[in-house]
């Protein structure tokens, strides 16, 4: 019995050995093959080598970048197709359809009452819609480019680093000037009143990095310290990079030039002055005697004292009561709305006849700021715009 089994097994054993031998054969051929590759021209070897040494970080980055590129490509393609469809819908030539046309078409096709502009439907090229991302911050060996890379906010901390650098420079300069017994020239002093620091969001966009509240306040502190130095005007370019002009200030500057009327007097007309629901046009004539006409009537057009005060306030504020004539046409709205609209029109028009100092004072007094607020509609199911009906659970 045992012998029989042995007999059966015998060829199997042999087979096993044969297989082993075969395996060994294969391995030797592989070795040979490897050796032959080693003797290949140097370029391919270098290629293989560098491929091996390509850092893990770089490899994953390249994959990410490729994905991003493909994604952007499809998005761009879809945007182009959508644009052509939209042009066809609007019956215009798709070749000459611009971004402005797209915006108008979207506004026409999807009218939206949503207050926030960002919440309304939009169609913008994908570069604007998707946030920009940073490129690889390291080379093939994985070594970062920026010396503050490991802080996680290299750009922000670079700005802070540069600020300290500037502060040190200015301090050294101040020391040499003190040694020479020189004082800083007051005429050169840095003028910062017309601008303000970039707000947090703008700074984030500029640096392409998230900035926390604490970091932002640190940024402000460092910048204020730099500005407080006596020779800060020497770092003006650096400082101004992180400031932006005040909006209302720049607007107030472009004053309308008065026209000459048929009677030889100068006049300025302000159109579409609004307050609440009221809308009106106001003409100011200079020189005048203080005559006021509102829709053909004099100041008695307004019954209330308060409305008359409103109307006269810009004139009293600038000392022009008896020097100009006012003609106003106003419609819609109630009494106070109409008075407010005229007040704004007078203040806006008066800028043409007074000097810069008064204009700045008027701006600070809030006379040149249009009041856009209008009544919010009542909502169904509640008592007012916001107020709810009284409600008891039981």
């Amino acid at each position, binding site marked *: 019995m045992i012998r029989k089994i042995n007999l059966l097994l015998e060829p199997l054993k042999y087979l096993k050995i044969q297989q082993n031998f075969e395996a060994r054969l294969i391995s030797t051929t592989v070795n040979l093959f490897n050796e032959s590759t080693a003797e290949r021209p140097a370029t391919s070897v270098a290629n293989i080598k560098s491929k091996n040494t390509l850092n893990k970080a770089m490899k994953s980055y390249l994959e990410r970048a490729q994905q991003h590129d493909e994604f952007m490509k499809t998005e761009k393609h879809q945007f182009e197709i959508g644009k052509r469809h939209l042009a066809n819908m609007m019956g215009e030539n798709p070749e000459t359809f611009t971004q402005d046309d797209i915006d108008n078409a979207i506004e026409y096709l999807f009218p939206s009452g949503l207050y926030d502009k960002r919440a309304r439907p939009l169609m913008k090229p994908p570069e604007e819609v998707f946030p920009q991302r940073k490129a690889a911050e390291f080379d093939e060996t994985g070594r970062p480019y920026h010396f503050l890379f490991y802080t996680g906010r290299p750009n922000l901390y670079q700005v802070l680093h540069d600020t300290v650098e500037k502060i040190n420079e200015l*301090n050294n300069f*101040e*020391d040499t000037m003190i*040694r020479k*017994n020189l004082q800083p020239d007051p005429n050169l002093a840095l003028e910062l009143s017309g601008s303000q620091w970039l707000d947090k969001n703008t700074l984030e966009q500029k640096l392409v990095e998230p900035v926390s509240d604490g970091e932002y306040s640190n940024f402000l502190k460092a910048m204020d310290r730099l500005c407080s130095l006596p020779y800060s005007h020497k770092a003006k370019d650096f400082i101004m990079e992180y400031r932006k002009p005040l909006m209302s200030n720049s607007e107030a500057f472009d004053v309308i030039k008065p026209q000459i009327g048929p009677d030889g007097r100068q006049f300025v007309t302000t159109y579409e002055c609004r307050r609440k629901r009221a809308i009106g046009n106001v003409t100011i004539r200079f020189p005048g005697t203080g005559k006021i006409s509102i829709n053909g009537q004099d100041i008695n057009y307004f019954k209330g004292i308060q409305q008359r005060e409103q109307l006269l306030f810009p004139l009293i504020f600038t000392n022009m009561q008896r020097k100009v004539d006012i003609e106003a046409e106003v419609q819609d709205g109630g009494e106070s709305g109409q008075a407010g609209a005229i007040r704004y029109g007078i203040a806006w028009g008066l800028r043409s006849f007074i000097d810069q100092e008064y204009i700045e004072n008027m701006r600070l007094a809030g006379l040149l700021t249009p009041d856009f607020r209008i009544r919010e509609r009542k909502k169904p199911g509640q008592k007012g715009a916001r107020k709810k009906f009284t409600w008891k659970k039981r």
Partner: protein
Amino acid sequence: MFLRHLSIKFLSPISRRLSDSAVVLEAKTGTYANAFKKFEDLNKPTSEESEPFVSLLKNSKFIDLGDPEGKVVTGKIFHTVDDDLYIDFGWKFHCVCPRPIKNASNYVRGTKVRLRIKELELSTKFLGFEKDLTLLEADCQLLGLVQERSK
């Protein structure tokens, strides 16, 4: 306790390993021995060019000063923030003094001033901490200018 023991060290005679530094390398030695000797050499303070620490410390101004409390030293203003003068007087820490009312404009960066030391390190023990908490500052009293600044 251990510190009392340690402070005795200052009094102990200076022991210098002069003989060790005079090792001459043999030409015929194994590479390992060679390297070993080289390494040994490097580990030693380079006493050829520099004094050992012990004598440096012994001859230093810090030791000359004795008990620093109440001593008058000169320092240099290295930073000013509004009316605070940051003065460096050669110690581990700087000290911060308010700008004196008299001759206030003379106290600018780089000015040499006289100080009376009150305490070299502002540190005290607080409840709940094993170690002293330190402010990383010295406490001094500003006495005045050393001399008129060189113009």
